[in-house]
Structure formats: C-alpha cells, structure tokens
C-alpha cells in the first residue's frame, strides 16, 4: 500500500490524476468527434433528401406517388417507370446526342481554355486586364436573352436543328468559366519548372505542353467536370435550336415527360435519375483527381 502523504504517494497521485485527466481529454475529444460526425451526416441527409425522394418516387407505382400520405419507402417497388422512360422514343438518340455535344464541347473547350490559361497565367501583356474582365463580363449575360439572336445567327448559316450549332453555343458560353478556372490551376504551377525545361532546350510552348500540361491534369479534370455539368444540364438553348426529336438532347427529352396535364411523375423521376447518373459516375471515377486538382489550384483563385 502506498501511503498517500509520502513522496511516492504524491507521485502516484500525480500520475493517477494525470491519467484521469488524459482519459477525460480522450472522452471529451471522442464526444466532440462524434458530434461533428453526427452533424456531418445530418447535413448529408438534409442535402440528399430531395434526391432520395426523386429516386424513391422513381420506384413507386403511380398510385403511391400521388398519395395524400407520403410513402417513405417504396413498397411495392416497381420498375415500370424506368421501363416506360427508356422505351420513350428517341431515348437512345438523345443520350447519344448529349454525349456527342458535351464531349465535343469539352475536347475543344479544354484545349482552347488551356492555351488561354497558359497565356494569361504566365505572361503579362497589354490588354490582359481587359481580357480577364471580358471573361468575367461575358458570364453576366443571361443566356435566355440571347436566344433569338443566337437562333437567327445560326439560321443564317443553316445550323439550326444541328448539333454543331449547339456545340458552338455551349462552347462560347462555358469557355469563360473554364478559362478562369484553369488559369488558377496553371498559375499554381511554379514557372521555374518550365524555365528549367526551356534551359534544357524546349520552346516556351513545348515546355508548357510537356511540363505544365501533365501537372494540371487534376485541374483539367476539375474544369472538365464543371464544364460537363453546365452543358449536360442546359435546356432552353437546346430546346429552341433542336426541333427534330432525333437531334435533341437528354434535357429536352426530360421535358417531354411534362405534359399539359402536369408531369408524369413516376417516369419523370426515373428519367431524371437516368440523366443524372453519368455525371455522378464521372465524378466518382475522377474524384481523387478532383480533390487534388482543387487543392492544387483553388487557393490562387
């Protein structure tokens, strides 16, 4: 037995209270951590609820969708909404069109944006401020206001009801945003790397392509995802420009589920789920690059 008053006792006492304090800190930290986690999950739940509702509705039969008392879990589960959606005419065509349009836009856009990003991030030149202001300024014009001029312009070259016309419009509208984002990423890569390459014999552009381009990979991915989402989800321009059903995009196809007696909720939700899937899939596949890219480039703005 160690007597409490002795020196040994004091040391043990001190050790014991230190241990107790340590234990208390641990418990305190654990509780804090748990709280954060719970709040985090709550945030996810609240944000996801409408999406959950969309997916759940997609699996419900018609009568359960419009019931005065909501059914939280679909029961019975039915696939008829999905069947109906997929069998809707031109589904495959419209998927293809959306992919072609957005894909073309991304390929051209990323290339053009990368060059512009290098140009503005690496060089100071006369007119640079003006250029940057234009890039931001163009984004302020609401696309709706440009419907008629764009239509008439494309009409004069016979590009209404044609995919290239839509690609051109999307490109012009999304490019400023892509340039701005990519510029930040490029700016974050130290120019010394390029300079080193140039000393070794590369041209300026060659250095950019060989050194910077691979390093902004994550930035390119992030920019690509931003651009993809903006173009994939655009509606009014595609709707006005593309009149043949086999030329239309997925968003226009989605709009066809809203008839003059209201939306066909079940099939619409099923169709919407199908439309959102590619983007989510794209993100999940590329998300590690995204996180890296954003951290690499975002701070500089």
């Amino acid at each position, binding site marked *: 037995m160690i007597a409490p008053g002795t020196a040994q006792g004091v040391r043990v006492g001190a050790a014991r209270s230190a241990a107790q304090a340590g234990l208390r800190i641990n418990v305190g930290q654990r509780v804090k951590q748990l709280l954060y986690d719970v709040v985090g999950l709550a945030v996810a739940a609240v944000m996801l609820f409408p999406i959950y509702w969309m997916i759940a509705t997609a699996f419900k039969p018609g009568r359960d969708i419009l019931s005065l008392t909501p059914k939280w879990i679909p029961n019975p589960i039915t696939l008829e909404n999905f069947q109906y959606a997929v069998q809707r005419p031109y589904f495959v065509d419209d998927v293809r069109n959306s992919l072609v349009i957005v894909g073309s836009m991304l390929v051209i856009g990323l290339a053009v944006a990368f060059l512009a990003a290098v140009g503005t991030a690496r060089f100071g030149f006369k007119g640079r401020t003006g250029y940057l202001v234009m890039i931001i300024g163009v984004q302020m014009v609401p696309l709706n206001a440009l419907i008629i001029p764009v*239509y008439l312009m494309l009409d004069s070259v016979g590009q209404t009801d044609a995919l290239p016309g839509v690609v051109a419009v999307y490109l012009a509208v999304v490019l400023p945003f892509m340039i701005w984002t990519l510029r930040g990423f490029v700016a974050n890569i130290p120019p010394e790397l390029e300079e080193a390459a140039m000393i070794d014999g590369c041209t300026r552009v060659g250095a950019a392509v060989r050194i910077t381009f691979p390093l902004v990979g994550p930035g390119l991915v992030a920019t690509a995802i931003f651009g993809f989402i903006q173009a994939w989800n655009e509606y009014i321009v595609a709707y006005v420009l593309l009149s043949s059903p086999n030329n239309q995009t997925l968003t226009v196809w989605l709009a066809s589920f809203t*008839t003059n007696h209201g939306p066909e909720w079940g099939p619409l939700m099923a169709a919407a789920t199908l439309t959102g899937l590619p983007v989510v899939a794209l993100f999940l596949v590329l998300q590690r690059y995204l996180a890296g890219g954003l951290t690499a480039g975002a701070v500089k703005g």
Partner: protein
Amino acid sequence: MNFRKAWFSVFTIAVALVAACGGTSSSNNSANQSGTLTVWLMSGSAPQSVVDGVNADFKAKYPNITVKVELQQWGDIGTKLDTAYAGSTPPDVVELGNTLVAKYAAAGALEDISGKKSSFDNSGTWLQSLTDSCTVNGKLYCVPYYAGSRAIIYRKDFFDAAGVQPPDSLDGLLTVGKKLMTAHSSDPNFSALYYPGKYWYAALPFVWDFGGNIATQSGSKWTGGLNSSSSQQGLTTLSNIVSQLSKADKSGDEAKQDAAFAQGHIAMIIANGWEVGVITDPKAGDPSLKDKLGAFAIPSHNAGQTAPVFLGGSDLAVAAKSKLQDAANAWVQTFTNQKNMAQMATVGGVIPNNTSQLNLASGLNSVFFNAAKNSRFVPNSQNWANVENANVLPDMLVKIFTKQQDIPTATKAASDRITSILNGGG
C-alpha cells in the same frame, strides 16, 4: 438588317467546315416538288396510325417529297414558334393551339389560304369556333384540326351512394354537391366538385351562361366585359359553388386534377374528354375507376339547358415562308379528310373539326362531343395570347376565390387590363 450581313462573312467561313457535317433542312422549291416537308404536331394529338396512314397516302401523290413529322411539347412552345417563324426555314405545317393562331397570322407568319378553303373536306360544316380561331381580318389562315370541350366527369358510385342524379341546372349542381359533401363529411380531403382556382377555362361557361363575355369588339376597338352585371352574376354563382364544394388549391391550376381525382376523394371535376384516359392511366391514375366514371354536360342556370363551353383545340397552319406550300396544303388536306378525321374521333377520341362527324363518339365521349355544339371561343384578337401570358383571368379568379378582392373590384381590374392589352397596350 445590315448588322447581320456584316457578320455573315466572318461566321460563314468559320462554320463552313462545321456546316458540312451538319444536317440539312428542306431544299429549294422546284416544279417537280421534291424536298423535305417538315410537319410539327403536338405530342399526343394524333394517333400514330393516323399519321402513318396520312404519310402513306401523301407519298402516293408526292413521291419525291420526304415528310418529317416532329412531335413537339406544349411547354415553351411559344418561344420555339417565335424563333422558328423568324428563321428562314420555318416548319411547313404546324399544329397551333387555337388561341395562338391570331398572333402568328397577324404577324405574317402564316399563309393566307382563304382561296383554298373549299379544297378541304367538310369545310362547309367546320365547327364555328375553330373556324373563328383561324380567321383574322376576314381571311383564313389555317385549317381546323380537332377540338376539345369540357363537361363534368363524376363518380357514379359516389352519386349512387348519396342517392343523387346528375343535375340539370346550376342550382341543382349546388344541391347535389352539398348532399355529397354531407355524405362524406368524415373525410376532410373530400371535394364534391374539385375546382382549382386558376382554372379559367372552366369559369367561362358560368360567365357565358348568364350572358356575359370576356370582351366585345366594335370596329377595331375592344372593350373588356368581365365586369358587366351578367358576367359578375356568373362568377358569383361559381364562387359560391367553389367555396362550398371544393377543397382544391384556390391558387393552383388544373394540371394535376386528374391525378387528384384518381386518389378517390373527389366526386366531380370539370374536365376535357381525354382526361378520362388520364384518370384511368396506371402511370399516375387508378385503372380501377374505369367503370365508375360518368359524364354530364355543365348545366345552365336555366333548368334543362346546358351552359356554353369553351372550345379548345388545334388548327393546322402552313408557313408563309414555306417553300413547299402546295405540298404542305396537300398534306393538310389529306390529314383532315373525311376518312382520317373519322379515325381521330374514333381512335384518338378527340372532337373532329366538323359538325357532320360529331356522331362518331362512343361511350362517355358523346357527352363531350355534344357539348361542342354549344361552344364559344375567346376574343379573336392577335393580342389574346398576351392576355393569356399576362395571367389576367387566372389572377382575377384567384383573387375572387381567396376573397382578396370582391367580385366587382376584381372583375373591373381584369376587364380594364384586357381592354388595354387587346387594344395593343400592355
């Protein structure tokens, strides 16, 4: 437009390569009539079998023309039509909602076919309201296609259980409704007559039945008529019915009334004939209601008569800028001929464009077809579409039903607004 021309060269060069990959629309007119005829039909209006049949018949006469029938959606169709008609190659044939025709006709978008009227089947017995919708300044700009009229769809089982019969007067309607409400008093969601506040098409019968009108024209000047005493009387009757018999959203519209009806807490709705199909459609409705549905015409305040209903519907118009006008008219002729019209009525279930074929209805459809005989149209002005887009009538009804304004005030405001818009103002 010099502005456009200034940019053509720049843009054309840049897009020349791209244009080579794009599709082409209709080619130039030529004596032997070849090219692509573009037809825009609204989704759901014609059965596919009819369209296929028409194209086959048409092909026999015009073997070198390819017909492209494109189905369009109602949402934002105005925007799409504006741009299409503004362009250089508008669709040759377009199905236009009958309230939209005057706007495009007055703007010069449609071909004047006054001289060709007799070439269309049954043009002598075309439904008057549809013909009116096609006539602007005495000239004919389109061909009536099909009509839709409203009557009251009701639950036969609810009526039987409450011991009531379809009424033959507006007072009778209120009495029947009140009995139904009593029979279902334990259900807080029950409506004897479900009437969403913004449903202005269904309010018109009440206005017209008492002798009122939306607007009248003398010379070229329009005067709004909703604040006349007869109009107000009609709206008062309606307001009475709504407040006692309806639990529907007083600020909502009728888009989901069929789905609501299928949920089983409603005894009557004012509806189009095709809404029967929506109510029993498994996608959002209840197929088991098929045999429980009946229909009767909206009664007049005079016992034994029916109230005039709004005749909805569509017309077919040929574009003024079309390069294949002869072929376009020929297509419309084929589409609206006796045989195909009959198919629309029997297979499609829509009201055909002429009175001589009104007897083709079967089942509940006969009620709606007959209602079309006593039908009216909205003021046939090029500015009517603006009245609709400015929500004048729905807003007025909402104010009345939610008791925000009394009927004299609400109708006066609406009437003044309609006068202003129809006469070219805002």
